């Protein structure tokens, strides 16, 4: 049930940012815009996100804990791919996967299908073929 509650909170955050501030809740855009001209609200959003995450981490100690322990080169390669890919594709799980899907944007539906698809192929190769 916590999963559904967490999802509802994520949806409420995206909704409030749209209805109050007229912005799309896309973390890729917000983070890469931190050095741009409209940085103030983005910096405040990220600060709030860190505070919200910290509050949950205190209440649920396992909320941000990895059980995968990948090797460092794998994490670096994955990080580079996520950073480059989200900029090239103009969005990640939040912008395309939540906001764009809820808007029924064909671009976001396509992007979400593709990143879930290549993600699933990668996990399949790692877990079942190696």
């Amino acid at each position, binding site marked *: 049930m*916590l*999963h559904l509650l*967490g*999802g509802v*909170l*994520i949806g409420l*955050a*995206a909704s*409030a*940012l749209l209805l*109050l501030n*007229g*912005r799309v809740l896309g*973390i890729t855009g917000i983070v890469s815009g931190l050095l741009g001209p409209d940085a*103030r609200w983005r910096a*405040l*959003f990220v*600060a*709030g*996100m*860190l*505070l*919200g995450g910290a509050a*949950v981490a205190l209440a649920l100690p*396992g*909320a*941000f804990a*990895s059980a*995968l322990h*990948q090797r460092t080169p794998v994490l*670096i390669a*994955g*990080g*580079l*791919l*996520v*950073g*480059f*890919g*989200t900029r*090239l*594709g*103009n969005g*990640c799980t*939040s912008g395309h*996967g*939540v906001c764009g899907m*809820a808007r029924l944007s064909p*671009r976001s539906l*396509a*992007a979400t299908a*593709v990143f879930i698809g*290549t*993600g*699933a192929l*990668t996990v*399949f190769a790692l*877990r*079942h*073929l190696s």
Partner: protein
Amino acid sequence: MKAGLSALCIGGLFGAGLGISGMGQPQRIVGFLDFLQYFALRAPSVAGKAGSSDGAWDPALLLVMAGAVGVHFVAQRIARKRAAPLFVPDWPTYAFTRIDARLLAGAALFGLGWGLTGFCPAPGILSAAAGVREGLVFVPAMLAGMALFHGLERIRARAVTDETGAARRA
């Protein structure tokens, strides 16, 4: 002023939602992405490993997506009926409308990195902030990937300018 304060509070709501949802646990992401095992169980080279080593598909993230998309779908409907957002004059504009190669290639690369690490950008940042080793390695690499994209875009823009400049001279 109002927009800044609301961005801070909404960021807090989003960070809390991510933490509560389980998105901050990369093993859950990988468990969710592990649904292809059911299509491959008949392949003898795969069946043994799929059954024994890593367990079943973890559908939890489907609930996260259903909750988030469901709530935001309603908000999009409300937005369509209102003239403007509460604190600013304009609704967002969407610069891109076509499904093009850049969108698909970017999403494909992102998915590859997502499957390798179990992190998408926001949970990665929160994991690093929580001092989790995997997040602390992932986030600098992610920022480097974003910087690499911007660097290449700048070079590309300059090349286009050069070409048009050369064309003008010719």
